[in-house]
C-alpha cells in the first residue's frame, strides 16, 4: 500500500513538473516568435494567468453530459500518456507506472484523448467543431501509420515493448541512440511528430482563418482551462516519449529540458517556414513518403541492424 501511495505522489510531482514545463515552453516559443517579429511578446507567466482566468469565470454553460466529459477525457488522455512513460532514466522518483508492454498502452492513450474530445465537441453542436474533429481524426489516422511503423521498428530492434528497456538499450554514448542506429525510424517518427504537434503545415485541425480554433469553439471557462492544462501535459508527455524512444532518454532534469527543447524546436521551425496544407494534402503526405520511410525502417532493422 505504501508503495502505491509513494508511486502516486511521485506521479503527481511528475505531472506538475511536466505541466509547468509545457506551459513555460509554449510561453517561451510565443515570446521568441514575438522577438523575431520585432515585438516584446507575452510575459512568461501569461499561460498561467489565462488558465486561472478561465477557471475563475463566473458562468459556464453546458450542452449536455458528453460536453462535460470531452475535456475530462482529453485530460485523461494526457495524464494517461504521461503515466506510463518513465520520464528520467534510472530515477525511481520519475519512473512512473512503467511495465513490460507500456509502449502499446501509451500509443493507445495518445489516441484516446482525441476520441473523447470528438464526442464532447460533437455535442457542442458548432459546425466548426464537427469539421475540426473530422479533419483531426482523418489526419491522426494518417500520421499514426508512420509513427506506428517507427515504433514497430524500434520494438523489433531492441526486442522489447518496454520504454524503460528501450532507453536502457540506448545508453553508453550518443552513437547508441536510435537516431544513429536506425535513422529511418526516427525520420518517419519525426515527420509524424510534425502532424502530432499541429503546427503549420499540418494545422488543419485548428486552422486559423478557416475554422478558427476548430474543435474547441464551444468550450469556455473551466472546460477551456482543463483543455489548456492538458495541452501542456500532453505536449510534454509526447516530447518525453520521443526523447525516450529515439534520443537516448534523459539521465537528469537538465538533460531532459535540453533534449525536449531541441525536439520541440523541429516542429516550431518547420511551422514558421511553411504555410498550411489543405486537408487532403496533409492526409496524403503522411501516407506517402513518411509511410515509405517507416516501411524502410523495418527492413533496415531486419536486414542490416539485426544481421
Amino acid at each position: 500500500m505504501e508503495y502505491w501511495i509513494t508511486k502516486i505522489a511521485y506521479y503527481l510531482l511528475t505531472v506538475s513538473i511536466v505541466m509547468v514545463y509545457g506551459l513555460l515552453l509554449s510561453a517561451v516559443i510565443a515570446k521568441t516568435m514575438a522577438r523575431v517579429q520585432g515585438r516584446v511578446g507575452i510575459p512568461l507567466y501569461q499561460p498561467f494567468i489565462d488558465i486561472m482566468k478561465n477557471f475563475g469565470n463566473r458562468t459556464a454553460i453546458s450542452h449536455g453530459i458528453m460536453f462535460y466529459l470531452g475535456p475530462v477525457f482529453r485530460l485523461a488522455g494526457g495524464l494517461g500518456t504521461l503515466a506510463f512513460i518513465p520520464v528520467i532514466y534510472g530515477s525511481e522518483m520519475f519512473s512512473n507506472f512503467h511495465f513490460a508492454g507500456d509502449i502499446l498502452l501509451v500509443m493507445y492513450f495518445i489516441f484516446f484523448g482525441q476520441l473523447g474530445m470528438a464526442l464532447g465537441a460533437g455535442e457542442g453542436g458548432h459546425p466548426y467543431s464537427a469539421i475540426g474533429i473530422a479533419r483531426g481524426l482523418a489526419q491522426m489516422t494518417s500520421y499514426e501509420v508512420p509513427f506506428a511503423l517507427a515504433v514497430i521498428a524500434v520494438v523489433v530492434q531492441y526486442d522489447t515493448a518496454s520504454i524503460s528497456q528501450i532507453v536502457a538499450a540506448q545508453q553508453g554514448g550518443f552513437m547508441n541512440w536510435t537516431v544513429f542506429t536506425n535513422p529511418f525510424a526516427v525520420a518517419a517518427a519525426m515527420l509524424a511528430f510534425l502532424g502530432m504537434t499541429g503546427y503549420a503545415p499540418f494545422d488543419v485541425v485548428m486552422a486559423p482563418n478557416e475554422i478558427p480554433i476548430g474543435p474547441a469553439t464551444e468550450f469556455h471557462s473551466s472546460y477551456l482551462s482543463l483543455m489548456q492544462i492538458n495541452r501542456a501535459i500532453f505536449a510534454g508527455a509526447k516530447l518525453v516519449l520521443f526523447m525516450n524512444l529515439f534520443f537516448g532518454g534523459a539521465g537528469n532534469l537538465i538533460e531532459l529540458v535540453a533534449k525536449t527543447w531541441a525536439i520541440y524546436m523541429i516542429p516550431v521551425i518547420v511551422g514558421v517556414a511553411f504555410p498550411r496544407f489543405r486537408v487532403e494534402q496533409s492526409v496524403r503526405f503522411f501516407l506517402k513518403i513518411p509511410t515509405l520511410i517507416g516501411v524502410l525502417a523495418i527492413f533496415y532493422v531486419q536486414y542490416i541492424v539485426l544481421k
Partner: protein
Amino acid sequence: MKNEDNTFANNGLLPEEMDLFCNARPVPYEPYSIEVVEKFFNWMRANSLWIMAFGTGCGAIELNPLMTSRFDANRYGIQVRPTPRQSSVFVIGGYSSVKTLKRIIRSYEQMQGPKFVLALGICTINGGMYWDSYNTIKRLDHYIPVDVYITGCMPRPEALLSGFFELKRKIKAGECDGANRYVKNLDWYKDNQKRVIKKWDMPDYNW
C-alpha cells in the same frame, strides 16, 4: 415576453425551432465573498483580456495595428479569440447599424461572464456623424452595458490602448460589473433592443 414560470416566451422563433433553444432567464452572479480571492481573480481578468474577433464597424480597422510590432498589445495580455464563448472583451468598433446590433447582442449574450465592453469612437456615444441615420443606433449604452468609452473619429490605436488600460484599472478596482447590470435590467435592455430590431427571429436570450 415572459411566460408564467418566468421563462422567456421566445416569440420570435418558429414553432419547430422552440425546442432547439433554451428559454431560461439568466441570473446575476455575485463576486466571491472573500475579498482577497475576488481581487486575485480581478487581477488575472485584467491581465488576460481576450478580445472577441468581431469587427462591428469602421473602427475595427484600429484593432489590427494593435497586434503588430509597433503597438504590440500582446505584451499586456491582450489577444484575439475567434469565438464569443472564450472571449471576455467586446470592442464595438464605432457605428452600429441595426443589422449589426442584432449580431452584437447575440455575440454579447454568448460570452461568458464577467464580460466587458469597450465602445470605440464617437458613434457609440451619441451617434456621431450618423446622428440622423435611419438604420444606426445612437447610444450603445441603451442596448448593451458599456464599461469604457473611447471618443474620437477615428481614435488612434494609442487611444485604444489607453482605453484598454482604463478598462484594466476598472477591472482591478472591481468596477466592471456589466454582465450583472445586463442581467438585472434585462427587461429594460430587451425592450430597447426590440424597439429597433423589427425582425426578431432569434431566442429572447441567446444562451
